[in-house]
């Protein structure tokens, strides 16, 4: 286990970083991370939070997506959906997903390409895509 000086993340021994132009100083074990390849595996949470900060959809959009998803999957009102809720974890199969996409298209007056619809796996992703498409339309 080692800690990186620039952040507070730590990583397990199973990772095999390739050290390019790095210096590992004995006692302090300071590593300079220059390889992007495994960096992203080490800091998934940082990436996610950066993504959310940049591209957060309006709460109303998220709310509307939740309503449509709940209706499609016949979820009871007690079930709380969050932006991170994954459709698959809620029991959506591929037919549910395309029905959800269709419902979102009708609700927001947008058109979703097949490539994009494959990438909609959570409420947040759906909301972000909707905002992007609505913005494009305007």
């Amino acid at each position, binding site marked *: 286990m080692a800690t990186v000086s620039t952040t507070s993340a730590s990583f397990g021994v199973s990772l095999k970083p390739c050290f390019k132009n790095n210096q590992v100083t004995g006692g302090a074990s300071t590593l300079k991370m220059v390889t992007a390849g495994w960096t992203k595996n080490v800091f998934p949470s940082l990436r996610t939070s950066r993504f959310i900060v940049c591209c957060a959809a309006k709460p109303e959009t998220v709310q509307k997506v939740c309503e449509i998803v709940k*209706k*499609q999957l016949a979820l009871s009102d007690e*079930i709380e959906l969050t932006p991170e*809720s*994954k459709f698959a*974890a*809620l*029991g959506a*199969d*591929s*037919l549910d997903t*395309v*029905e959800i996409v*269709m*419902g979102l*298209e009708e609700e927001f007056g947008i058109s979703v*390409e*097949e*490539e994009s*619809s*494959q990438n909609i796996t959570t409420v947040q992703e759906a909301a972000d895509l909707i905002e992007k498409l609505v913005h494009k339309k305007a």
Partner: protein
Amino acid sequence: MSWLWLRCRVNFTMNIRCCQRNFCAASSPLVPVPLPSPMETHLWYLVPNEVKSDTLLNQYLELLSPCERENVFRMSGDQLRKRALLARALVRTTISRYQTNCQIHPRSLKFRKNIFGKPEVDWQDVDDRHLPPLHFNISHSSSLIACGVTMNSPIGIDVEEKQRKLKNNILAFARRYFSPYEVELLTAISDPEFQRQELIKLWTLKEAYVKALGRGFSAAPFKTFTIRFRTAMEGGIHVSGHRDSEAFDTVIDSFDDPKNLANNWQFALLDLAGSHYAAICTEKDRTAGGKGTLPMKLTVWRTIPFVEDECVSGTDAVVAIAGLT
């Protein structure tokens, strides 16, 4: 049942070694099955409602990799967790049956995804290196889980409950996702129930095809290809629902990749367990001489792994709709 899941999750590491040692003695071992021949397809299905024993569920849980277990517990609610667990258990136990003398422990199988995300067996870790690779594909509804197996041919399967109702209007859905020809076909059906059934059947066929291709939904958007039924004799185009099992022709409209010509693939559509439509798509046997499609040679088992297996081909549980002998 929720308490049980929690206990499983905490204790699974301790139970594993125990299970491996006593694997065959603990309950009925998995019945080994001969490999499918290159022209054969095998289909194994499991009905979640038939699995009631927590002990059995625990046994299945111990077969899963840590990653698979994590995925199971990420599901929302007991029913979805059970379904996710049974799906992985079905895949692992099914594939391990095909090893010689049941030597391969279902737990030791490794899986990976191809570059498009389609799951496949990672054979590197299997001891018997002379074993030709099997292909598999899995599908589930809320009440049935199925795993199709072939040798040397990619396979895609899809199962849907016959009673499944769309939340959207049927024709609106078809216009959004299906090809113009298919929309026309469905529009011509006046009875709404029959129309709904035909839509579901068509969905399973298209889904099975895309899964067989294994390149993701966007590689073959449903609108870009048509699946239609055509008898070899008449060469005409029928609305489905004809009595006799007939070969399919698939026609691809405006599809870019010449390597994936429609006539490389064959389909079977069946009424499974009285409750589901099941579509299976595999590559055609190229040695057939190009004279048309031979019907798919399919064998179907209903299973509760470690408990019972029943070959249901030729029974009411398997009723051919099209493409089968």
